[in-house]
């Protein structure tokens, strides 16, 4: 009889523990999702298209551990105000599941000269011109043209992972590339 009651109590304790664990997991999941949606999140950078800034050395031995992880803030999305040289994360215009990290070269109203075709293109309203820091292996506005600002998912501010490379990501201006209209 006594043992039976004890067993019942321990059973209930386990039940309670499981229930509170589930509740805590749920709460922290919700909070994490909200913060990463509204304020900031951490994204890995793959590939060498931003090479001097992110992933300066491609190390196949370490695999994805040696990839740079960057902090992306989302406060810029409230007004969609950007400046030249910001590093942004955006959805690829041809495949919405892919995200790219590139640098803004031109904002609405700028004239952009493309070095390959010697064309001068005007960036339309609500669009921006993005390019990678490593022109030789970067798929960017030079192939798919200006992208709508609505595709932008956030602005990169800091490098967080590999520990020896923790730093702020600066704006870098290419003064010679764009001319305000």
């Amino acid at each position, binding site marked *: 009889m006594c043992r039976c009651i004890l067993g019942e109590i321990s059973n209930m304790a386990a039940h309670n523990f499981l229930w509170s664990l589930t509740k805590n997991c749920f*709460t922290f999941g*919700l*909070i994490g*999702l*909200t913060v990463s*949606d*509204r304020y900031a999140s951490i994204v890995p950078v793959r590939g060498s298209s931003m090479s001097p800034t992110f992933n300066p050395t491609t190390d196949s031995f370490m695999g994805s551990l040696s990839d740079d992880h960057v902090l992306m803030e989302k406060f810029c999305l409230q*007004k*969609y105000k950007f400046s030249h040289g910001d590093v942004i994360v955006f*959805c*690829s*215009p*041809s*495949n*919405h599941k892919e995200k790219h990290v590139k640098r803004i070269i031109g904002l609405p109203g700028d004239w952009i000269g493309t070095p390959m075709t010697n064309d001068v293109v005007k960036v*339309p*309203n*609500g*669009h921006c011109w993005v390019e990678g820091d490593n022109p030789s292996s970067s798929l960017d506005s030079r192939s798919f043209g200006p*992208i*709508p*600002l*609505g*595709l*932008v998912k956030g602005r990169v501010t800091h490098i967080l992972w590999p520990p020896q490379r923790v730093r702020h990501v600066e704006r870098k201006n290419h003064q010679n590339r764009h001319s305000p209209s």
Partner: protein
Amino acid sequence: MRRWGLLAKEALSQTLTFARFFCLFHVTNHYLWSPTLVFGPSMLPTLNLTGDVILAEYVSHRVGRVGPGDIVFVRSPVDPNKIVTKRIVGVEGDRVTYFKPRNGDTCHTVVVPKGHVWIQGDNLYASRDSRQFGPVPYGLIEGKAFFRYFHPLLYLLVTEVQLKPDMGLGRRSFSHGLNWLE
């Protein structure tokens, strides 16, 4: 001292409850569904000029299940601070024929490129859509409208606030009530 400790604990638990509700609200609003008030003439036979409350769901565009005929919310490619309500006419690979009412009756045909959709308003004469700014990337789709609710009182309220009298409100009759959007 012990009293302050208790107070701090109480405040913390209250904050946590509030944060939990806020986060639950955010997640429901961004990942499941939310009501939105829409206005403007571009979807006219389907949606009224103003006063329609639309329920939008945010699941199907994430799993890629929006197609021709769906009414979607799209972040405008011309002004990223605006969200417009239009109907999808064609998805990638489709051949779309359209005409601009102000440019005579000449028809144009385009093929929608990969990863893009072609959106148009139901009211071809007062809509700014893909016919002006071309196909839009799929990533700009924010949600899909599936239910509409119209209430005259709400209509009056919104009219007072947002619309000017020269928009021809007096002559219009309204489509009333609740209905599923097709």
